[in-house]
């Protein structure tokens, strides 16, 4: 039951993704055509506030509920993995109009075809780990 709070945070996040139309294919297309500020405003303001939050956590001005300092697991370095992986992700994001979070929100919205996208995403994650030794990182 200690995980129930994460379910509730997820509900909040799912509502945000849905209410701000981040789950709309059209909003992603519009972003990549530079025809609206909406998505840039969302990501930009989240990151600006996020930088402040990270600073407060790292300088222990804010601690976790257990009173501990947070430990952010650093992302793996390497230009190939981040750039190539990023490009592949971006191709799929613009085609399907959904990154992983919105995929789950669209399941809740009752969009049947998103289950095929989600299946593809699981196959993609599986395939990456099956072939990763052969890829540049």
């Amino acid at each position, binding site marked *: 039951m200690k995980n129930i709070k994460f379910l509730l945070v997820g509900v909040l996040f799912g509502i945000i993704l849905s209410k701000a139309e981040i789950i709309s294919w059209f909003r992603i297309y519009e972003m990549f055509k530079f025809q609206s500020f909406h998505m840039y405003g969302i990501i930009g303001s989240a990151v600006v506030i996020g930088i402040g939050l990270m600073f407060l956590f790292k300088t222990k001005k804010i601690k976790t509920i257990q009173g501990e300092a947070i430990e952010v697991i650093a992302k793996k370095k390497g230009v190939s993995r981040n750039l190539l992986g990023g490009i592949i992700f971006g191709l799929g994001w613009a085609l399907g109009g959904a990154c992983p979070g919105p995929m789950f929100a669209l399941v809740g919205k009752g969009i049947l075809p998103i289950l095929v996208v*989600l299946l593809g995403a699981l196959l993609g994650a599986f395939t990456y780990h099956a072939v990763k030794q052969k890829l540049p990182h």
Partner: protein
Amino acid sequence: MDIILNPWPWYVAGPLIAFTMFLLFYFGKYFGVSSNLENICALGGAGKFVDFFKFDWRKNTWNLMFILGIILGGFITNEWLITSDTVILSPQTITDLSAIGIQNAGHNFLPSEIFSTESMLTLKGFALLIGAGFLVGFGSRYAGGCTSGHGIMGMSNLETPSFIAVGGFFIGGLIMTWFILPHIF
């Protein structure tokens, strides 16, 4: 009530996403949706085929609960928190989409050319859906994060890998939107 029922502007959504990340950190965790693709693979028995998936997914139950919540949030919004599925797009977007074969842009959240059940049941439609998902799943795990892990959390932590990855997201997204999508429909 209108404030809730109308679409939320960026200056509401952005800070609320930062708040979501805050809550996850406050509860001693982190923000990252795409690692759940690995959790689901592991839960489904992928460890029988690829050793990576032999990790104990139960330690990530909290994150699986998080995405279960996202599904619920999508459901709750659809049932009770919106009055219309119309998306108010820039007029230029609607014109551009019409020119590449996607009509009625913004009448719903998703284009029927891709997300209708009829389209899903055609070979091309099915391939588009599964292909888009495959690229997202493969790319996010190759890069070690998606829009949440790299885009929001990694950039908030000012991590160089995340700026490279987000640069990649945009290179891929721009190639798809400007050079590939016009030839698909």
